[in-house]
């Protein structure tokens, strides 16, 4: 199985790559359209901000390519947000593959932003990506923007209100948390993606 990590300039690419290595998969890091198109699985990582993330994908000429992919695609953290329609972060038009808005967490005394740490996920729809996810399973989140809950939401987490922890539409999937840093729970969900 060939897995590629789209090199969109995110800084957590190393971590995702190492996590895949721990699962026995050596993923190539690439921005080459042909290599991405030919891969069995495509992962779009990314830490940073939506506008520079999209700008980088445009610069690399990858926007239309990513939209046209038919193999399983996984966006992680910002990568998930980039799959959506629009992000409030820098008022950015994203890839528009999943019709959900990305909004900033409203800060309150109880809700510090960024949302940083381990939070429980609740499955909302059966999906092979969530196979084996237990009721009390937690994942590691670090983000200030979140995808609203909607028809594409597979799992939610609660941070002063529910938001999408896992989303999917057709072959496009997103995880708001960092599976590469979510211990056994994260490894299981990454494995599930590789097994799709």
């Amino acid at each position, binding site marked *: 199985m060939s897995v590629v990590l789209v090199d969109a300039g995110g800084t957590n690419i190393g971590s995702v790559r190492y996590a895949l290595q721990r699962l026995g998969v050596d993923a190539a890091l690439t921005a080459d359209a042909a290599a991405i198109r030919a891969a069995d699985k495509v992962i779009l990582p990314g830490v940073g901000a939506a506008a520079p993330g999209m700008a980088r994908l445009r610069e690399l000429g990858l926007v239309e390519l990513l939209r046209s992919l038919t193999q399983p695609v996984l966006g992680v953290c910002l990568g998930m947000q980039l799959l959506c329609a629009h992000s409030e972060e820098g008022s950015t038009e994203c890839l528009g593959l999943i019709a959900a808005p990305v909004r900033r967490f409203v800060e309150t005394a109880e809700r510090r932003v960024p949302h940083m740490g381990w939070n429980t996920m609740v499955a909302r729809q059966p999906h092979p990506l969530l196979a084996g996810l237990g009721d009390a399973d937690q994942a*590691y989140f670090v983000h200030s923007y979140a995808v609203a809950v909607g028809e594409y939401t597979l799992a939610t987490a609660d941070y002063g209100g529910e938001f999408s922890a896992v989303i999917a539409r057709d072959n496009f999937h997103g995880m708001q948390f960092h599976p590469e840093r979510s211990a056994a729970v994260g490894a299981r969900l990454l494995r599930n993606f590789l097994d799709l």
Partner: protein
Amino acid sequence: MLSRRIIPCLDVRDGKVVKGVRFRDHVVMGEIVELALRYRDEGADELVFYDITASPEARSVDRQWVERVARVLDIPFCVAGGIRSVDDARAVLHAGADKISVNSPALERPELIDQLAAAFGVQCVVVGIDSLRDGDGAWRVRQYSGDPGKTRALARGTLDWMIEVQQRGAGEIVLNCMGSDGVRAGYDLEQLSVARAVCRVPLIASGGAGAPEHFRDAFNAADMDGALAASVFHSRAIAIPELKRYLRGQGVAVRL
């Protein structure tokens, strides 16, 4: 619900994990990767590695061990020590660290925080603050605390600095209360509570953990997002699984 985090801190010196008392007299506690995995297995939520001599020696953190840790560790970790520029930070993040923490270099050049936040997003940027109460009762910032011979007392008030670093783009603050560090008599709840009131980003308590009750108080009394400790974990005086079960019994949301 978001869990409160238990964060073992590994002070790194010359490629080994060390621990001193009140930031002095460092003794070797073990190998970096070995200790990192031990804490992961025990249920640590995150790890912080401080290259405690990098800043006083004016050099950047050694990337090689960062990469070794990143390859094997599947929980988040933050690296601190001598990150003086966006390039230094990028090297550490590309080596696999999830966050970088700046302390002394941010005091030298506060705009470093703005630059890091712009380059990597606030979620990557942790600001460590070493704070000590002076004779007049005010908490003030210390610089270069990794080396007692070079530690400097600054005129900058701790709370003023906390407010400034948030405005500049700190995504998290670790407040090291130096007066309680290493003596295991409890976190400085007074200082932490005052700090909490001015801190709108995640705030991590550091300095003074000696018993499970101290962690409970940091969470339940001072509303900390995480509690950092070193010697009690290294010495096995407190085991993380028992600590977390205790905390859950005390009404603290933790990951078991």
